[in-house]
């Protein structure tokens, strides 16, 4: 049955047709899901075990968090528009939308840190209870992800301004977008499980 095997170049690989960069990044996101999954599970198990207050229902301001969540949601929209602009080669639009992503990320962080200060006033600290420990480590880890995403966006702006991301290389922005949307979705999960279902 064996027929003559033909030589082909690199591009003849048996592959998904999706670039390595993207497959690798999806794999990384799968890993991150387990990471946040563990953090969120711990929070769910631990919030009811706190032996001293304050308790979630006493301090969470759902309205404020809804506003900050909405801002973060809209930053994902800006991200989509930024990618679209890069794909069309519209440099100025791309930079504008990426700046909007950073700005909205900044507003989200500002509002959240403001809430942190309020909670600390109520007496909720890292060491006050299992609720405090698991709440701050879960949301703090998420905030670190947001900050790193903002740094990434800033680098992309710098690159676009120097004409280093032509439409052919739009995938670089697409991957950053994947990351940003992922961080966003994780927040939606946190918002639902931590703030809405208390």
């Amino acid at each position: 049955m064996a027929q003559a095997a033909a030589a082909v170049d690199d591009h003849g690989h048996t592959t998904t047709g999706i670039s390595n960069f993207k497959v690798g990044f999806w794999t990384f996101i799968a890993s991150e899901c387990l990471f946040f999954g563990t953090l969120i599970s711990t929070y769910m198990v631990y919030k009811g075990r706190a032996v001293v207050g304050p308790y979630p229902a006493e301090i969470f301001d759902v309205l404020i968090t809804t506003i900050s969540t909405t801002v973060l949601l809209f930053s994902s929209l800006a991200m989509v528009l930024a990618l679209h602009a890069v794909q069309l080669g519209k440099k100025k639009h791309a930079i504008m939308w990426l700046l909007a992503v950073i700005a909205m990320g900044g507003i989200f962080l500002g509002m959240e840190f403001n809430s942190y200060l309020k909670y600390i006033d109520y007496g909720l600290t890292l060491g006050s209870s299992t609720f405090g420990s698991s709440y701050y480590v879960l949301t703090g880890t998420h905030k670190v992800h947001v900050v790193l995403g903002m740094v990434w966006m800033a680098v992309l702006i710098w690159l676009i301004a120097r004409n280093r991301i032509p439409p052919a290389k739009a995938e670089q922005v697409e991957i950053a977008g994947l990351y940003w949307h992922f961080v966003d979705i994780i927040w939606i999960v946190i918002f639902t499980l931590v703030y809405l279902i208390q």
Partner: protein
Amino acid sequence: MSSVGTQTVEQQHTSHEEDTGLWSWITTVDHKRIAIMYFVTATFFFFVAGAKALAIRVQLMFPEQELITPEVYNQFFTMHGTTMIFLVAMPMAVAFFNYVVPLQIGARDVAFPRLNALSYWVFLFGGLYLNSSFIVGAAPHASWVGYATLTMPEFSPGQNTNFWLIGLSILGIASIAGGVNFITTIINMRAPGMKLMRMPLFTWMTFVTSFLLITAIPVIGVALIYLGFDRLFGTVFFQPAGGGDPVLWQHLFWIFGHPEVYILILPAFGVISDVIPTFSKKPLFGYPIVVYAGLLIGFIGWGVWSHHMFTVGLGPIADSFFVAATMIIAIPTGVKIFNWIATMWGGSLKFTTAMLFSVGLVAVFTVGGLSGIMHASAPVNLQQHDTYFVVAHFHYVIVGGAMMGLWAGLYYWFPKVRGRYLSETLGKWHFWTTMIGFNLTFFPMHFAGIFGMPRRIYTYSAELNVDIYNQLATIGAFIFALSAVIMAWNLVKSWRGGEKAPANPWGAPHLEWSIPSPPHHYNFPAIPTVQSREPLWNDGEREAILAVTMEEPETEPVMPNPSYWPILLAASITLIWALVMTGIWWVIALAILPVIYCVFKWGMEPAFPEGH
């Protein structure tokens, strides 16, 4: 313009091929060189951790000895286990992933060559950081499972446990990066015709192991973050006084820990699933079943973790569930063992050293599997928990399984790496001293354990009547140590003076044997097309492949640039983690700057020579 460009490219090639200086190793992104560095480093740590085992065995040879203080004993068994698992067994498997997988699937390198180099350097620096704890006299001392309460600041003051949790966090980064790299490589870079169900078993098991890495490591990562916060920033995750629960640590650790067992064993299963057919001159019996059994083991491996926690008191329903799940996972493992035996059945067997280690694995691992089924039963487990019976069991699984499989792979693939054979005479000495030394060390421990000798205690009472088992174990340990010296001697001797080996010295069926030994730095002049599971065993297909893979190309394929950013980024990652020990927020936050700088420069650097 273009002719100048070509010239530069060709010059780079010649320099790449000949360059063997230190700088070329530091900046290499070639998967084959990275594999060699992984192997050498892991072997170095094997001797480091082995020396600690010998010290432990000398201390335990007679009852009530005081050669080693309890404090030092705690550090020795903790670092013996931690080193053997994270710095020996795992990275040695990764050495084989690196060398073999791209060659088996017909690729010129892995998907992310610089990330691959980063993994190695992070592993090296993490390992050195972990072991530097001995220099400052504060080596980890709460065992490789680091149970909470023991690791809490009031019971483990000082930096010992900080070294442990930070060291493991650093190593986790290398593992996740490696997992991402190999998943992408296997999904995306197979030669034409290399369908998933045509992949060699070693590549398959690398694939499954990589998935376990990217999913299991984040879980222990979170547990280590909690531990670090409890110790350095005053959280109460594992502090009962604040409402925390030390059992949470046990759950998180073993949710990682059991898949980790398969991270250790599946690569070895992959190796012998390639070696046994080669030396039986028969295709692997029931190939799809072996693949599916591997997938099933990886999957069920997630649902058995609490069999490590039967003594915690989780209740009869939870215990029953985990007893059942643990018994079920023995089935796909047993299936594999039958497939290997059936492959040998009626084959024309050739007992090279690689084959001896493979058959040895099947025999010894089966013993470990059987003792595993014994303490899968909760009532039996209550008797055996924390005794030497368990020590015997997991050494049968990890040494008799994982390590013997990797040594089989060493003898099997060494001719490909070096173009020379390892000495078969020394190899047989290596194998038989391993078999005798290993069994003499660990078989008597079953009895010591059943008679009640607890593990992790620096001595035992003469009234236990377990002296004889301990003396046999100590003698065995020195024979086993001798086997390691024979192996090292064989490596050194054969690297320079081994008998010359051709491209396919064993008459093996897979693609890695279709190219010269040692391979060109670009592996394949052109990528061959595959039409079956054993391409080199089918006459027409073999000739067609060799016509492609053995030819000297007129212009060499363009390979990625060397880079020093992986080692610099690895150094800055290690630095920021090491600074966590200070517990000062702003110092740690500032140390992110060199990391970001290195990532940025890495991103700016062209991965390939200009124009490609």
